[in-house]
């Protein structure tokens, strides 16, 4: 298929006039029957690729996703777009629904599945009986021990792929260094020929800013200043509690409609916050890193890291949620010595000790494992992936070293005085370009005050009427939900 034909189809089916970088190239490769790896920035429409392919490739599309919240977001979008029947298989499903889905696999076009679920023998057996059109591995960097999000369950996807024999395999990720790309090729495609599309991570419309603070309260003072203009604003914090508390503080101090968002909320409540934010009915969302993947709001003008993320990869993914419409957006990260210390402490507390691994493998009661279900999850994942005790200890030691190294590197970046954008590109891009630093590029608070910056940047504000934060009564809601109420009364 030529790019023109693809573009025509994009217009009729999806109402877009242009592909985002990489989409057309990956589609062409896959339609030619090639396996492919796409390294595309967050918000570049990764999911459009498999949505587009649905009528072109027969058989079931399996999409592996590491996070349950991510799966339900993607599922909702497919359902909303009516592209074919779609469903999810993960550990949250009850036995009844699971049986139903497995018995009716042929009725579905899209199956979102968690890696640990996909690797279960009875699921594989069932999938071997079905024609698999496309096998999509999302967040493929999780396969690499050099990435920050290594997941042992991902290691088995290569084997699974050989068993279920998809016509084509597509690996997708937003962030991958050279090392991570090599790991993906090796683990998932066993060094077979793979078409690779790698876009530069650079997003010229994002202004990068480091904001140094001495005291925790300084953040709040600066934040209040930033919340005056009506920019759609996303604030990242480190914990659920922080998200709730900061949202409450903002609601008390400003008139801006605000909400928090984290993985502890149930699906429908999360979906509601996303949709209100999308419709500009919410101005400000305070979120943990759970917010983002799969969310398509394109006019986030201000993105704040209230606390520092653990590495470049997360930082890049998160700032990538600003300015997707291509208009300028400001991304600002607070830099505070305490944040760095807190992050190190958190990481250390989450480290799995060799002794715990040993206890796990020899089935000796271990207090740490009883108190920390997440550590138990990790070890079980290693066990499922057939790791021996020594291999687990070696791998954990390596990933811990990688992680510690990543924090240090990111901290150096935050404290640096050279062009921030150049450093981001140097870190990720295969062949890094030279950035032309200008006044729309980046700054640190040491070089330029915030008020100076704000007067220089002219970020568009919301022009729609400010949504009311006052509740409607039931009587005011009915006419909005339902039409011809009078006719109802008469009938």
């Amino acid at each position, binding site marked *: 298929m030529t790019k023109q034909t693809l573009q025509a189809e994009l217009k009729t089916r999806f109402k877009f006039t242009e592909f985002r970088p990489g989409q057309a190239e990956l589609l062409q490769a896959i339609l030619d029957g090639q396996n492919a790896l796409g390294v595309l920035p967050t918000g570049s429409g990764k999911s459009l690729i498999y949505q587009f392919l649905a009528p072109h490739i027969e058989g079931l599309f399996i999409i592996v996703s590491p996070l349950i919240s991510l799966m339900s977001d993607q599922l909702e979008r497919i359902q909303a777009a009516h592209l074919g029947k779609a469903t999810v298989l993960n550990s949250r499903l009850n036995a009844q629904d699971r049986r139903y889905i497995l018995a009716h696999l042929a009725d579905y076009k899209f199956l979102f599945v968690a890696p640990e679920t996909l690797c279960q023998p009875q699921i594989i057996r069932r999938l071997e009986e079905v024609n698999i059109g496309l096998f999509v591995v999302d967040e493929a960097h999780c396969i690499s021990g050099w990435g920050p999000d290594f997941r042992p369950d991902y290691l088995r996807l290569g084997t699974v792929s050989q068993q279920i024999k998809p016509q084509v395999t597509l690996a997708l990720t937003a962030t991958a260094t050279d090392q991570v790309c090599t790991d993906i090729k090796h683990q998932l495609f066993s060094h077979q020929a793979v078409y690779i599309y790698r876009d530069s991570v650079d997003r010229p419309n994002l202004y990068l800013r480091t904001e140094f603070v001495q005291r925790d309260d300084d953040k709040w003072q600066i934040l209040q200043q930033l919340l005056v203009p009506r920019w759609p604003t996303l604030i990242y914090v480190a914990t659920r509690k922080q998200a709730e508390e900061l949202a409450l503080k903002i609601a008390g101090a400003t008139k801006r409609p605000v909400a928090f968002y984290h993985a502890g909320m149930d699906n429908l409540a999360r979906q509601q916050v996303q949709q209100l934010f999308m419709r500009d009915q919410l101005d400000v969302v305070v979120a943990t890193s759970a917010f983002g993947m799969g969310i398509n709001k394109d006019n986030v003008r201000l993105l704040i890291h209230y606390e520092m993320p653990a590495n470049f990869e997360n930082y890049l993914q998160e700032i990538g949620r600003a300015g997707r419409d291509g208009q300028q957006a400001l991304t600002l990260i607070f830099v505070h010595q305490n944040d760095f210390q807190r992050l190190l402490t958190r990481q250390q507390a989450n480290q799995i000790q060799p002794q715990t691994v040993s206890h796990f493998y020899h089935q000796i009661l271990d207090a740490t494992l009883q108190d920390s279900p997440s550590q138990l999850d990790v070890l079980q994942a290693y066990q499922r992936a057939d790791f021996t005790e020594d291999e687990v200890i070696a791998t954990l030691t390596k990933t811990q070293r990688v992680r510690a190294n990543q924090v240090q590197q990111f901290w150096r970046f935050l404290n640096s005085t050279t062009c921030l954008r150049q450093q981001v590109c140097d870190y990720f891009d295969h062949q890094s370009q030279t950035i032309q630093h200008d006044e729309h590029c980046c700054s640190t608070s040491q070089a330029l005050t915030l008020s100076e910056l704000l007067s220089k940047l002219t970020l568009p504000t919301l022009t729609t009427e400010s949504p009311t934060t006052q509740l409607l009564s*039931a009587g005011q809601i009915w006419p909005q939900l339902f039409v011809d109420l009078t006719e109802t009364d008469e009938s």
Partner: protein
Amino acid sequence: MQADLLLPLFSRKPRRYQAIYYILTGKRTVSNLLAGLTYDLLPYFHFYPKLLQADYQAALQQLMSQQYLKVQSETKTIRLTALGQLAQVQLLQRQIWPQTYDYWRDGDWQLQWERLLLSVQVISNYQHQQRHYAPLATQPLVQAEIRQWFYRSGRRQQHQFVKDLIATVTGLPKDLADLLANSLRSNAYAGTSDFQLGLDLNLTADELSLKRIAALSQFMHDITFLPQQSPLRQVFPAAPSPLSRGAEHTYALWQADQPWSTIVQNSYQKEGTLLEHLLEAAILVPDFNFESLPLQQLIAVNPESYFAQRLSEIQAQRRKND
């Protein structure tokens, strides 16, 4: 979890806190059900299915440090202090605790809640010619049910649905009506976030969820006065048998006057398990006949047995509750 919201589950008399945890998370054993019966907490079975043991323990710890609860380690029981009882009364006065909730009558509130949200969304979107949207229900079962319900209902039924919905919600106390209506949404009406709702109603997130169940349960109760064929009523399937599948089977044979020895002979299960099925029925079946001759005979086999002892406990407790 907000600790003080657990206060209504305790009383001045000592209660086994682990049994209460299992009731809340819906672990169905005779011992848990019997505890539920004794504490008058059976309606709250499966009330917090996602509650983690660690969170529950932490909440109890907090209530103990506030001097609201007192633990008795030897018996693994907890009771309210005088201070705790005062806090309990104050909480109940705030009208957020779902007093009318009954799992055995209303069914799983999480499913019922999704049924309500999704049916309203489907009708509202249909009326506004909106075809593309993500369903407001996470359970495939609920999605399939409401889809079928929608395809069955014509224009008249849809009008009737809206009419019955408005009438039922309007009949609720105003705070519950507003809470319920403000939780609904569709493409035509975006609704409001739980966070905003909590701010406006002066409720924390946990209090909001609780009051929402209170509103739902009142609503579920009120729709039972609608005609059977009301499209709104049909959204909510009647609660299924309260018994587990095994107990249901055993109890059906028992009801059909099969001799106990035959039931035992024909079953793959141990007699002890089958006796537990009968106990489950004795706790949960509304008109369980404690006086029947076969039952008396079964007791007479060994009046000191676990079965006989439990049965008389259950009977005494049910008499007391009635």
